[in-house]
C-alpha cells in the first residue's frame, strides 16, 4: 500500500484525517504549508488537496501536480466545504471530490478505491 499525502491549511482537519486513515492502516503524511513542489520528491500514491488553501488556490496546485514529471500519474482527490466545487475540481484535474464535512466511510471508500487501482 502506498503513501497518502494530505494538504490542508487547517491543522484540525489534517489531524482528524490522518487519524481516520491511519486507523484504516494507511501510511499518511500531512502538509499545512508549502512554498513549492519540493514535497513531491517523496513518492505518494494518493494526494488529498483542500479546495481553498490559505492564500493559494487548491485548483492551481492540482494543475501543477498533474503537470509535474514526478507526480503527474498520482491520483488526486479534492476536498471542499463548497458542495458546488465538484465540477470546478474535476475541471482542474482532480480525479474525485469529497465535500466537507465528510462521512468517514465515504473517505475510506474513495481512498481505498484509488489505492487499489494503483
Amino acid at each position, binding site marked *: 500500500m502506498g503513501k497518502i499525502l494530505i494538504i490542508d491549511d487547517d491543522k*484540525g482537519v489534517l489531524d*482528524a484525517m490522518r487519524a481516520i486513515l491511519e486507523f484504516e492502516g494507511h501510511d499518511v503524511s500531512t502538509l499545512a504549508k508549502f512554498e513549492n513542489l519540493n514535497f513531491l520528491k517523496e513518492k505518494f500514491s494518493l494526494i488529498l488537496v483542500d479546495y*481553498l488553501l490559505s492564500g493559494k488556490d487548491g485548483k492551481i496546485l492540482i494543475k501543477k501536480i498533474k503537470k509535474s514529471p514526478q507526480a503527474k500519474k498520482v491520483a488526486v482527490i479534492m476536498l471542499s466545504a463548497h458542495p458546488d466545487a465538484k465540477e470546478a475540481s474535476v475541471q482542474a484535474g482532480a480525479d474525485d471530490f469529497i465535500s*466537507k464535512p465528510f462521512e468517514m466511510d465515504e473517505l475510506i471508500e474513495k481512498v481505498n478505491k484509488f489505492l487499489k487501482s494503483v
Partner: protein
Amino acid sequence: MYSDKSIKPIIFIGKLNTKLSTLDLQKNINDLTKLLVPTLADWCTIHMVVEGGNLIRLKTFFNDPKKANIARIFSKKYKDSKNAPPSKYLTKVLKTKKTVIVRNIDESWYKQAARDSEHYKLLKELNPKSHMLVPLLTHSGLIGIISLARNKNSHGFNKTDEILINQIAHKAAMAIENSILYKKIQQQNDRLLNTVSNVPGIVWEAWGKPSKNIPQNNYVSDYIEKMLGYTPKEWLSSPDFWIKIIHPDDKKRVIKESTEIFNSGIGGVNRFRWLKKDKTPVWVEAHSKVILDESGKPQGMRGVTMDITERKKAEDVLSRLAAIVESSDDAIISKDLKGIVQSWNKGAERLYGYTESEILGKSIAKIFPEDRKEEFYEMMEVINMGEAIDHFETKRVSKNGRLIDVSLSIAPLKDANGKVIGASAIGRDISESKELERRKDAFIGMASHELKTPITTMKAFVQILQKKLEPLKDAKLEYFLDKTNQQLDRLTDLISSLLDLSKIQSGQLDLNKEKFDFDSLISTAVEDIQGLANNHKIQVKGKSGYIVYGDKHRILQVMTNLLNNAIKYSPGAEKVVIKILPDENKVTVAVQDFGIGISKVHQKRIFDRFFRASGASEKTFPGLGIGLYISSQFIHRHGGKIWVDSAKQKGSTFYFSIPLK
C-alpha cells in the same frame, strides 16, 4: 275730427313740454299721439328705428273709435317688415330724414303707401285726404317717424302744419330719446345689480382711506349676510366695521397692505381672515381697485371679496404635501406618458445630480443607463394599464455618469376622469444597502465555509471514536456518539442553507445540470428521511419513469426540505404521502402531511426569505425560516413552480413541478 282754428301754437308747445317730460317711453308715445290726434290729424302712427335700421310700429291711433280694429290689424300685421315691406314713404323718410307731405291724396298715393293688397284695401277704406311724414331727429340721428293723416272733410297739410309738427317732432324726439336712454341705463343697472347679487362674494365700495372710511358713501352687496352673518346695514353702521371684524392675528398686516394698495393708486389683492357674526373665521381674498379723482388722487376703493376658506384648505393641504415632497430624502418625480419630466424634487436633484431647471420638460430617458433603456417602455406599458410598480430594484445613471442602485415605486397619475396621464416615481438610493448586502453575503459565504472546517474535524474524530469503541459493545456510548454525529449533521445542514442563501442573494447560484432518473431521486430522498423518522411512514404513490435534466443535488435538497417539514409540522400524524404526477411536459410532486396546516394569510408569504408562520401553534418549531425560500429559488431556477395547498388543522400539501425541457 280736428279743428285747426282752435290751435294756438304757443299753448300747444307748452302743453307738449309738460306732457313729454316723463322718462317713461310708452307714456310719452301715448301722450304724443293724444297731442297730435285729433288736434292736428285724424289718425297717426309712430314708428321707431330699431337696431339694424329697421322700423317698428309703436302705435297707431285713430280719432274715430270705430276704426280701432284697423289700428289693431296695423299693429299686428304691419308691426314690422316681416309680413310686408314698409311703405315707399317710410323708406323715403328713413333715407332722407326729411318731412314728406302729400297734400291731396290720389290713386298714386295708395300705390306708394300700401304695403300689400290687404293694406291697400284698408287704406282705401280709410280714404284719407292728406298725409304727412315727419322724422323724429336727435343729435344722434333718426330715431323714428311720425305719420299723420287727415280725413276727406279736412284741409290738406300745409306749410304751417309742417312747421308746427316739426317743432312737436323735435321735442318729442328728445323726450323719446331721453326715455330710451333712461330705460337703457335702468336695464344696465338692473343687470349690474343682478350680477352683483349673484357674485359668490361681496361687492363693495369704500370711500376714504382704508383705515378711515366715510361710511355714508360706502356700499356693500347683500351677499355680506350670507358670508359673514352681518346685514349690509350693520356693515355700514361704522366706518371701520370691516377692520373690526378682521382676525386679530391678521389685523395689523391687513391695514398695512390695504393702505399700500390705496396709496398705489392702482389696486391689489390681499388675503386675510374675517370673523363671522358667530365668531368663526372665514378666509377671504379681496380684489381691490382704487378710485381716483380727476387729479389722480386716491379717493377710495371698490372691489370684490371672496370666501376662499375651502380653497385655502385645499391649498394648505397641497402646500403641506408639496413641502413633504420637497423635503423628502427620496427622489420624487412625475412624468407624462412620453416620459417628459413634469416635476422634480430636491431629493431627485441629490440622487440624480440634475437640478429641476436642467431636467424639467426633458425626457426621463437621461437617467436610464444605456443597457436599461427598454425598461422605460416596459414600465410605461404597466402604467398605461393603470397599474403600479412597487419596490422595483434597478440601476440609474446620475448626471456625472455614476451608476446608482435604486429602488423605484411607480404609480399611474390619473386625471379627473380616471384617464392615465402620466406617472409618479419615488426613487430611493439603495447603493449603500446593496453594498451592505453584498458584504453580508460575502461574510455569510466565508463564515459558513469557516464553520464547516471545525465541523469536519469534529465529525472525523467522532467517527473514529465510534469505530474505536465498536468492539466494546457499549450501547450507551454508541448512542451518545450517534447523537453527537446527528447534531453535527444538523449543524452542517444549517450552514449549507446559509451558504445557499448567500449564493442566491449574490446571484452566484449555479446549477450543475445533468440527466438523472427522477423517480430514483425521490426514492433516495425518501430513504434518507425515512431512516431518521421514528413515527411517520412515508408513502410514495405513482411514478413518472422520466429522465430529467437538472441539478440532481438541488432537487434532492428540495425534496429533503419538504419531507423534513412534513414530518416536523405533523407531530401527531403517522404518515406522509408523496405523489408523483407526470405530465406531458413536466413532472409534479406533491408532498402531503396531516399536520397543523398553514393559515391562508401565511400561505402567500411562506416562500419568502426568513418567513416563519408566527401563530401560537407554530412557535414550538425551531428553524431559520430559509428552507422554503431556498427550495423555491432552486425550483424557479429550473423554470419550475412551487406552491402550497393547506387548511388549518387538516394538513398541508406542497407541490413542485419541474419542466422536462
